[in-house]
């Protein structure tokens, strides 16, 4: 009986859109997300299993075939994949690690346009120049009073990963900042 039932999935930012001068805000599609933790010795084995080379350089990310690994700390990566669940690829791996599904903990906002960096700098204290935070750069940081993971996916497109209950605040703050002209 239960198998026949289906219930609706609702995006935390359903219905949120913003388009302003120089910047647009778009809720990102649902995605599989895994918090991956492991010692240095496990990195090669896990990279093989995941099909993406876990980056070892701070503030960098690697994307291969739609799967991205973001360096968050010396033993911590955020895996994002819209199509297939990284947890599935980690099932039988012997290499010491801890993987936790956080697909629903986070949601994401895409901030795009020539004014994207300025709008994010309305609440984020990091240097977002291309020199300091180029394409592919990623970092856990602060936006206003919320913690985010900031990831520059293209020169003028940032992805902001945020816990779901903070997403409304972050979206609202970005929209307010975007009204300032980007």
């Amino acid at each position, binding site marked *: 009986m239960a198998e026949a*039932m289906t*219930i609706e*999935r609702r995006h935390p930012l359903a219905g949120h859109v913003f388009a302003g001068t120089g910047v647009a805000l778009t809720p990102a599609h649902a995605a599989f997300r895994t918090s991956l933790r492991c010692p240095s010795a496990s990195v090669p084995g896990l990279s093989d299993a995941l099909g993406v080379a876990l980056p070892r350089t701070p503030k960098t990310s690697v994307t291969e075939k739609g799967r991205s690994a973001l360096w968050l700390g010396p033993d911590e990566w955020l895996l994002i994949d819209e199509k297939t669940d990284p947890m599935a690829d980690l099932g039988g791996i012997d290499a010491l690690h801890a993987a*936790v599904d956080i697909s629903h903990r986070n949601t994401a906002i895409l901030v795009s346009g020539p004014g994207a960096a300025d709008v994010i700098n*309305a609440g984020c204290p990091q240097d977002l120049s291309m020199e300091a935070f180029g394409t592919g750069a990623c970092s856990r940081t602060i936006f206003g009073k919320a913690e985010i993971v900031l990831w520059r996916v293209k020169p003028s497109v940032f992805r902001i990963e945020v816990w779901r*209950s903070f997403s409304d605040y972050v979206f609202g703050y970005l929209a307010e900042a975007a009204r300032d002209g980007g």
Partner: protein
Amino acid sequence: MTASTATQPNRVDGAGRLTPANPVRFSFDGDTYHGLAGDTLASALLANDIHLVGRSFKYHRPRGILTAGPEEPNALVGIARGAARRQPNVRATVQEIHDGLDATSQNRWPSLTADVGEVNDWMSPVFAAGFYYKTFMWPKKAWDTVYEPIIRRAAGLGVAPDQPDPDRYAARYAHCDVLVCGGGAAGLSAALAAAESGASVIVCDERAAPGGALAFETDARIDGQDGHRWATETAAKLAAMDNVRVLPRTTAFGYYAQNFVALAERLTDHLDEPAPSMARERLWQVRAKRVVIATGAIERHMVFANNDRPGIMLASAARHYLNHYGVLIGRTVGVYTANDSAYAAAFDLKRAGADIAVIADIRDTVDPALLEEAGRLGIRVLTHHAVVAAGGKLRVSSIVVRPCRGGSRQVIPVDALIMSAGWTPSVHLFSQSRGKLRFDEDGRRFLPGEYAQDCASAGACNGAANLAATVEEGLAAGEAAAKAARPKATAKPLSIKAESGGSWDGLMLGAGPNPEAGKVVKAFVDFQNDVTEKDIRLAVREGFHSIEHVKRFTTNGMATDQGKLSNMHGLAIAAEALDRPIPEVGLTTFRAPYTPVTFGTIVGHGRGALFDPTRRTPMHESHERAGAVFEDVGQWKRPWYYPRAGEDMAAAVNRECVTVRKSVGMFDASTLGKIEVVGPDAAAFLHLIYTNPFMKLGVGRLRYGIMCREDGFIYDDGVVGRIAEDRFHVTTTTGGAPRVLNHMEDYLQTEFPEMKVWLTSTSEQWAVIALQGPKAAEVLAPFVGGLDLSKEALPFMSVAEGTFAGVPMRLFRMSFAGEDGFEINVPGDYGRAAWDALHDKVAEAGGCAYGTETMHVLRAEKGYIIVGQDTDGTVTPHDAGLSWAVGKAKDDFVGIRGLKRPDLAGGGRRQLVGLRSKDGSTVLDEGAQIVADPNQPPPMDMIGWVSSSYWSDNCGGPIAMALVEGGFDRMGETLYVPMPDGVVEVEVRDTNFWNPDAESDNG
């Protein structure tokens, strides 16, 4: 005369840079006037021959416009834009006019020209410095009832707005290689040099137009062109460069550690009708690799009797009004100076048509070239003469001139007086950067000495001798800053030729020569705070020998002035009175902000809904739709109770409580903190973190755990489920989630780093529905896939993974209400739909949703504690009656040693017990104190306090928990709880009020 100047008697045809074809209408104190686009309120008022613009702070003296810039201490007005937009204390010299500008003078009643408060001026002998401290001492009671209310009413300047600020404010963090503070000759040169070398540059200036002193120094030539034109073109050139951001109307107001500089940018105050989308002001928080301080210098006034009369202003200001705004500030102008630059002002005014009645120069010898030019223009110069007093009240009408060493007085009629005591380098930002100032004996001024940060000063603020030096210093500082910020970039050395005919030589510090000393006169040092020369002498006489004490006793240089005009004079007078050299007396601290900053700018985007995140669970909309009343729990909005038609809170909570125990209730528990603990050492780690044993907890089992700090006091609690050998699902209190994770990470990273285990917050991965009551299993069953809900397969305190309506689920069989119950965890995006689906079935079964209040009552009926409510940071597991949760056989856990401290292990501890009101009806106040003898005289011996207290329909009366000294040994005793309406008699009992033999008690 054109139409627009017809109504502006002091506007001079052909003078200044404004366009006569661009008139602007504004009002001042209700009367309409015309100015020109580009005017400040001050220049527009002066164009209309209005000098009197306000009353002073303490004595209510009539005051005029002293300066032409942000250092203005007198011309503070209220600016309104509609009813809600009213800002007091706006400097008329900074505010640009726009059509419809509505300005009002301050600190006067009933009118500017006839002000009742002026009585303070006549009574000033009693209002000398320190008056407040001495006068309102006695009787003590009068302070609250008489003195303070009167002082508060009389104090303050301007009227604060009484409506919410409708404007928006913006904020921005910015990074650059070189930040240049100041857009005058030095700043622009520095910015250009840095930018041409490839550095990223931000250059800000507080004025609307760049150029600084070039606005009035019409004899300046830079790169072969007029100085002001060079500044305008250079700023435009910079603005067009990709690596430069030029910020006009932007004040660098605070210089903090590691080149973190705060700028306030004013965006709309100068506009007729700003678009609603525009922010009024923007706060820039700039982190610069190098900072160039190019803040210029501020001219000083002369200190003499009645030097505050309207019509008396700084010489550079008069020149600024003429050469930039085309406004002649008077027809018959006196000059009182100790500095060459006032001559240039006098000559400019003379050429524009004013009579220069006299130049009184306190110096014996003056540059012959200046005297020659004065002679050629027919201006009388009296060297070694002083202005000893000014006549007139609402406007200066005459000056009294005497030789410096005494002699015959001449009374000379004037309608304006311009003055210069020399120039004070603006070292505010340098000083805020913690740089050490040095005293320049020759120039009698403080200059940047030892630097504390990566910055450099250039131009007048650095004591540059003339325009050529200013530009050279700017270029050098800009180039050096760019090179330091980008060692690999190739510098592009620039050379700019600059010259100026004017000289700024000569100075005077302190009070002018005053052969009439001794009379009751007021010679102001600090106009804004109404501090006179005598006040400073009085302070020294009364024993205040530190300049910091003198400042506080007299208020000299306090508030928004921050010593811009008053500092050096005040210091010189104090030094003279103390008979010590100036550098020994020292300067007071320059504090941020350099000029006032609105609260809106400081707050930025963070107001209203953006003040703090409001966190909502995935099911929030369903709760709203069900009419829930919400409770704020930290940042969370949680349903408090769900009133139905006609129900008040008590009725709703009673119904919800009874419903759960009779049939079934559902509760949104999504806000609970959750941590996934994963790794081979997961059990060993939890064994150390919790007081309970965890090594032997079976897979699929739950355990209620208590966490202590090292001191042995309860830190948090929660249920821990073992999902797999190496995987645990830990729950924490809602409020404790972040600090518990931090606490666990701290131990893991720094005390037990060898453990192979990792922690991940899953608080928001899971939406959680608590389903409680005898019908819980029956309601849940149809939704569940892959699991047997029988008590044999899924016993109490166990966890299993299955599906709920086809989506992954972690199902906990547990209860915080003492019923059969479940906590259903589904991925967050499914929370809303799961809640709605389940709610239909709950309703069919006669159940209901319940909120946090019912959750509290139900758990209190079972005597379950809430950490933070029934504990206060000084409660041990033993005190809380939870000794069973402390592993007796454990040889280590966090808190093991703390619990053995003699004061924790000994007797007399406050222990958690139940209380029942003997009258069967009174609900005790939470927080109420408990006494053993209600008849003892105060102060009574308080032996405990009520931590939780509710009405319980299920138990048929009030129930309460309390921490009571030796409580476990007082079972059955009668104690007393004094409350506002009388003393309540209570009986001590255990905390388990409901169904003591339930299975759920055997945790």
